[in-house]
C-alpha cells in the first residue's frame, strides 16, 4: 500500500466526480428541489396548524432527506459502470475501499450537503427555532453521510440489475431505519426539553461504524458486480 499514492488516488477520484457534477449541475439542483417539494407536500396534506407542523417537523424533514438520498443513489456508480470507468477503478493499485470512500464523499457533497444547507430554511417553515433548529442541522450533518455510505452498498449490489431503482430502495431502507430514528429522535428530544445529545451521539456512532465497514462491503459488492 503506497501512502502518497493512496491520497493521490482518493483526491483524483473526488476531483473527477466533483468536476462531473459541475458539468451537470442539474443533478444537484434536482436533489434540492425534490427535498423542498416533498417537505412542502406535508403542510398541504396535513393542514397548516403550527402546533401540528412543529410536531411532525422532525420526522417529515428527515424522511424527505432520506428519500432525496435514496433517489440520488443511482448516480453513485451507474454512470461509471456503463462507460467502463468503474472497471478501471477496480484495477487501480490502491485499496478499493479507499476509492469507494472518495466516490461516496463526492456523492455526499452533491446530494447530502445541499440538504444540510437547506434544512434551516425548511425547519423554519415548519416552526422549528433556536436549539431545535440547530439540532436538526447537526443531525442531518451527521446522518446524511451515513445514509450515503450505506446507500452505496445497495447501489453497488444492484448495478446493472433490472428494476434496480425499486430494489435498491427495498434493500437500503431497512438499514436506514436506525439512522432515521436517531436523527428525528434528536430533534424531538430537543423540542421536548430533554436535549438531543443522546441521539446525536448515537448518530455519530452510526457514522463511525458506517465509515469503517460500509466501504469494505461496497468494494466487495462492486467486485461481484463486475465479474
Amino acid at each position: 500500500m503506497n501512502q502518497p499514492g493512496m491520497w493521490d488516488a482518493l483526491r483524483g477520484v473526488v476531483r473527477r466526480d466533483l468536476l462531473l457534477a459541475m458539468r451537470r449541475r442539474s443533478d444537484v439542483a434536482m436533489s434540492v428541489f425534490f427535498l423542498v417539494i416533498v417537505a412542502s407536500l406535508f403542510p398541504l396534506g396535513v393542514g397548516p396548524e403550527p402546533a401540528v407542523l412543529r410536531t411532525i417537523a422532525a420526522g417529515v424533514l428527515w424522511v424527505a432527506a432520506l428519500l432525496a438520498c435514496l433517489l440520488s443513489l443511482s448516480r453513485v456508480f451507474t454512470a461509471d459502470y456503463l462507460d467502463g470507468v468503474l472497471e478501471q477503478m477496480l484495477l487501480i493499485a490502491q485499496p478499493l475501499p479507499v476509492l469507494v470512500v472518495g466516490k461516496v464523499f463526492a456523492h455526499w457533497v452533491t446530494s447530502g450537503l445541499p440538504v444540510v444547507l437547506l434544512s434551516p430554511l425548511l425547519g423554519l417553515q415548519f416552526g422549528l427555532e433556536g436549539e431545535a433548529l440547530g439540532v436538526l442541522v447537526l443531525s442531518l450533518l451527521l446522518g446524511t453521510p451515513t445514509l450515503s455510505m450505506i446507500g452505496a452498498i445497495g447501489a453497488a449490489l444492484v448495478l446493472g440489475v433490472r428494476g434496480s431503482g425499486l430494489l435498491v430502495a427495498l434493500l437500503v431502507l431497512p438499514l436506514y431505519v436506525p439512522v432515521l430514528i436517531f436523527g428525528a429522535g434528536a430533534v424531538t428530544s430537543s423540542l421536548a426539553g430533554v436535549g438531543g445529545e443522546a441521539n446525536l451521539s448515537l448518530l455519530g456512532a452510526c457514522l463511525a461504524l458506517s465509515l469503517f465497514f460500509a466501504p469494505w462491503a461496497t468494494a466487495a459488492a462492486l467486485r461481484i458486480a463486475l465479474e
Partner: protein
Amino acid sequence: MLQAVALSCTRGERQLFSDVNITVKPGTLLAVLGENGSGKTSLLRILSSLLSPDDGAILWQGQNIRQLKEQYCAQLTYIGHLNGVKDDLTPIENLMVAASVTGDHSSGALVQEALEAVGLKPEVHRLPTRVLSQGQKRRVALARLWLSIRPLWLLDEPFTSLDTAATGLVTERLRLHLQQGGMAVVVTHQEVALPPDAVQRLRLTA
C-alpha cells in the same frame, strides 16, 4: 513473465474453456483468437484479475496474482470493450484525471502528445468527449498506451471502430512496447501486423 496454469471458466450455465495454459515472455504478444462466445473476453478478464477462474492459477514473475493483488495491478494496463472515458469531460481532462488516479502522473503536455500520437488533431482535444465519434472515443481510450510505462498490456479488441491509419499507429506502438521488453495479450479478430517471432496465437473454440 506471465503464466497461466490450467485455467477453466464457467459463465452462467456454459463452460467456456478448461485446462488452458499460457506463457507470455517479455517481448512477445499473445493473440487470443476465436469465434464469438468462445470466452476470449472472459480469459482476458481473468488475466486482469477482474474475474476469478473456476480452476487454475495465474503467475506473474512466478508469484500467484492472488497474493500480489494490488502489486500485480500496478504492472498492467487493461483496455476492455468499454472505453473508460467520461462523456462530459474533454479528452485532455479524461486522461489527466485518469493518470492522477492510477498514479501515472502525466503533465498536460505529455497528454497532448499522446492524443496527437494516436491521431487526434489538437482541435479535438478540448471538446467534450460526447461530441466525438466512436472511432475518436476509442482513440482517446487507446491514448493511454502512449502514457503507460507498465510492462503488461491486456487489450480487448483494441482495433474495433478504428480506421486503417489508427490501426497502424496502435500496431506500431505495440511493436515499440514489445521491443522495449514489454508483454501484451490481445484479443482480436484480425491478424496483428507484427514480426512473426514476437507473436503467439491461442485459439479458443466454443
